[in-house]
């Protein structure tokens, strides 16, 4: 009899975990209070990182991005625009990062090719003509909703059950063990209990709320908001990055016939409604204009904000120690916090959701004695449309 | 939608809410089509009066001399012209041409219908 894993949250984390655990033979249920991938993941920029962004500042993250990027190209080729990205130097200060960037890419195994301004402008005619250099890396574009749906569709084909508009309102206990969740179905306004052998908190910025329901006062995550600004017209075929340390408004992603510039960063208390600071819209458009001058006059298409669940490194507790966990996300076994059977996976980024799920799956497998190894590197993802076949 | 009733299906065709030129044009095509079929049946029924001899036919003509039937004629002519002229528009659009111009084409078709209807009614009235 397979163990029943219940996953709270159907963002990029929850859907990747569903896929991983289903392949290991768990019976999987996903509960999501809204629509799939409708919050943080939905407003994700859609950049499949080559790792270039972290090449100078975080070599471990850079290498992991590079590996996951190559894997995603193999597992979901049709859901990606595989057109590469450019890191562009606009001024002399940018140019000072050139060598460090190329070195960092080489160390992380990221193919990086420097282009002359003339070559760059031939590839991308709408770039700032005053650019000083451009370095080409294997960035890619994805649509975050469909990205997550591909994982969830595959999990569903392997038996996972998904409940949307179903909100977790409490945990069910047996002593110090969690044996399930109490949920409210928004469609019927009825409450019911879903039993489970283990529960995974993949609720992103709401991870703290879920933790509190289990009596865990402090979950190691800080909701950090950022905005994205979309303008009309696909001004570039590729991702356009600013060659500099990672900062605000330094990435433009083409999404179909539009271009999206982002992002910013500020801590919020309530991830449910994040008003967009109006001065940030102008800030983003100005940043965009430096890379692609057309941003100054292109009509606005939309502005959005979402909170990322960034890891709070100051909190200890039930953190799983001694593992080769990639910086940026952590897995927690809350047995140490008085909630046996509850695990949290916090932080991370959509590009590496498969790797995150693998690490969580390994931990959960060890704790529960399920020895099936992770198979997500080999099993290609089904089309997202398969979700609707039943 | 599964389990749709016949009324729901009919309503889907004539629900005018939120519709613009193309959708209104579609509804009018359905209505004029039904109207023309009804007219055709009436027309054929009335023509059988011819087989019933002069009294029956004269009685019929006397009835339709009433001014109300001039109005009915105008509605009939409008319906016939609209269906035919918009029908040409639909034929062109249906082969994949002019989709970006579909709204101005509708107004053009409608305007032409109105102009020709007015001209026809004017002709009928002036003869009478």
């Amino acid at each position, binding site marked *: 009899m397979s163990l029943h894993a219940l996953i709270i949250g159907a963002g990029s984390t929850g859907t990747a975990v569903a896929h991983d655990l289903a392949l290991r033979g768990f019976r999987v249920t996903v509960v999501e209070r809204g629509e799939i991938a409708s919050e943080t993941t939905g407003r994700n920029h859609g950049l499949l990182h080559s790792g270039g962004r972290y090449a100078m500042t975080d070599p471990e993250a850079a290498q992991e991005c590079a590996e996951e990027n190559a894997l995603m190209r193999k597992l979901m080729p049709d859901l990606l*625009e595989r057109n590469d990205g450019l890191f562009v130097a606009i001024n002399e200060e940018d140019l000072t990062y050139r060598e460090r960037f190329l070195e960092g890419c080489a160390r992380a195994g990221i193919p990086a090719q420097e282009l002359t301004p003339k070559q760059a402008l031939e590839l991308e005619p709408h770039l700032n003509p005053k650019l000083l250099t451009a370095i080409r890396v294997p960035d890619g574009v994805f649509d975050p*909703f*469909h990205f997550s749906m591909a994982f969830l569709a595959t999990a569903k084909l392997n038996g996972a059950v998904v409940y*949307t508009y179903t909100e977790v309102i409490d945990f069910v206990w047996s002593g110090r063990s969690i044996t399930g969740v109490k949920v409210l179905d928004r469609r019927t306004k009825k409450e019911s209990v879903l039993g489970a052998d283990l529960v995974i908190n993949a609720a992103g910025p709401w991870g703290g709320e879920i933790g509190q329901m289990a009596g865990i006062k402090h979950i190691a995550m800080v909701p950090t908001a950022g905005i994205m600004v*979309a303008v009309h017209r696909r001004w570039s*075929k590729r991702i356009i990055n600013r060659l500099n340390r990672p900062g605000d408004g330094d990435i433009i992603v083409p999404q179909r016939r539009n271009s999206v510039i982002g992002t910013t960063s500020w801590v919020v208390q309530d991830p*449910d*409604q994040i008003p967009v600071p109006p001065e940030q819209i102008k800030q983003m458009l100005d940043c965009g204009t430096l890379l692609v001058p057309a941003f100054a006059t292109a009509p606005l298409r939309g502005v959005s904000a979402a909170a990322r669940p960034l890891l709070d490194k100051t909190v200890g507790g039930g953190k799983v120690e001694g593992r080769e966990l990639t910086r940026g996300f952590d897995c927690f076994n809350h047995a140490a916090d008085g909630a046996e059977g509850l695990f949290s996976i916090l932080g991370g980024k959509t590009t590496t959701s498969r790797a995150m799920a693998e690490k969580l799956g390994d931990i959960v497998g060890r704790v529960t004695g399920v020895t099936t190894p992770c198979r997500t590197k080999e099993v290609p993802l089904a089309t997202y449309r398969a979700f609707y076949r039943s | 939608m599964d389990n749709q009733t016949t009324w729901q299906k009919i309503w889907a065709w004539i629900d005018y809410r*939120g519709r613009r030129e193309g959708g209104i044009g*579609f509804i009018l095509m359905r209505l004029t089509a039904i109207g023309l079929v009804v007219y055709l049946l009436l027309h054929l029924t009335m023509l059988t009066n011819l087989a019933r001899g002069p009294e029956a036919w004269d009685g019929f003509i006397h009835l339709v001399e009433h001014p109300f039937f001039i109005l009915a004629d105008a509605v009939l002519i409008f319906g016939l012209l609209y269906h035919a002229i918009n029908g040409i528009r639909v034929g062109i659009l249906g082969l994949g041409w002019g989709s970006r111009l579909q709204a101005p084409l509708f107004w053009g078709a409608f305007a032409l219908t109105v102009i020709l209807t007015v001209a026809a009614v004017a002709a009928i009235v002036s003869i009478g």
Partner: protein
Amino acid sequence: MRTLKLRILRGSPTLGRQYQTFTVTLPDEANIIDGVEQIFGHQDHSLMFRHACHHASCGLCGARVNGRERLMCITPVSEFPDGATVTLEPLRNFPWVGDLAVDVKPLLQKMDMVGLPYSREDELADSPEPGNRFEDCIECGLCMSACPVVGSSTKYLGPAPLAGLARLIQEPREVDFSKACALGKSPHGVWRCHSAMECTEVCPSDVDPSQAIGWLRRFYTFKKK
């Protein structure tokens, strides 16, 4: 800033239906989806709606805004005068889940039958290098909601699947489209369209399904591209 009254259809097949009006105050550059989010975050946490990207790529936030099919994320509040009432209702021709959410299974099953790949050759950019980009169709369902024939028939393929079929035949990318092709010729394919043209008018993504259906008719009739 402006204040709008959002009159939203609430309920579900189990709970019944009624309209509920909320007042929201939004910056002038905001879109309707921001108002819906404000209601969800601050006024009524039970509101059900679909959304993700907020820039018209994911195709989730389709609804009828004052009766007309729109994506809520690119419907600017500046279209409505200060103090106006804006009615929000779910899309037509899809099973109702609750409030503004519908089940898009009917459309996605048909897109699955057609099998249009998600990405295409990139002919939009100016650079000499070929590349790929996502198909224009975001499978948002606005066209399916606006089509009166879809409204009267679950079997009719509908604008988006037929437009997808046209794209598939134009650019097969090693997909065997013979089955999908047969679907298009069937009684529930291209010949059921009556050129109401609402699909092309409401499409937020430059797909022009009516033109695609016409192209398919010429393709089937004359068997050349």
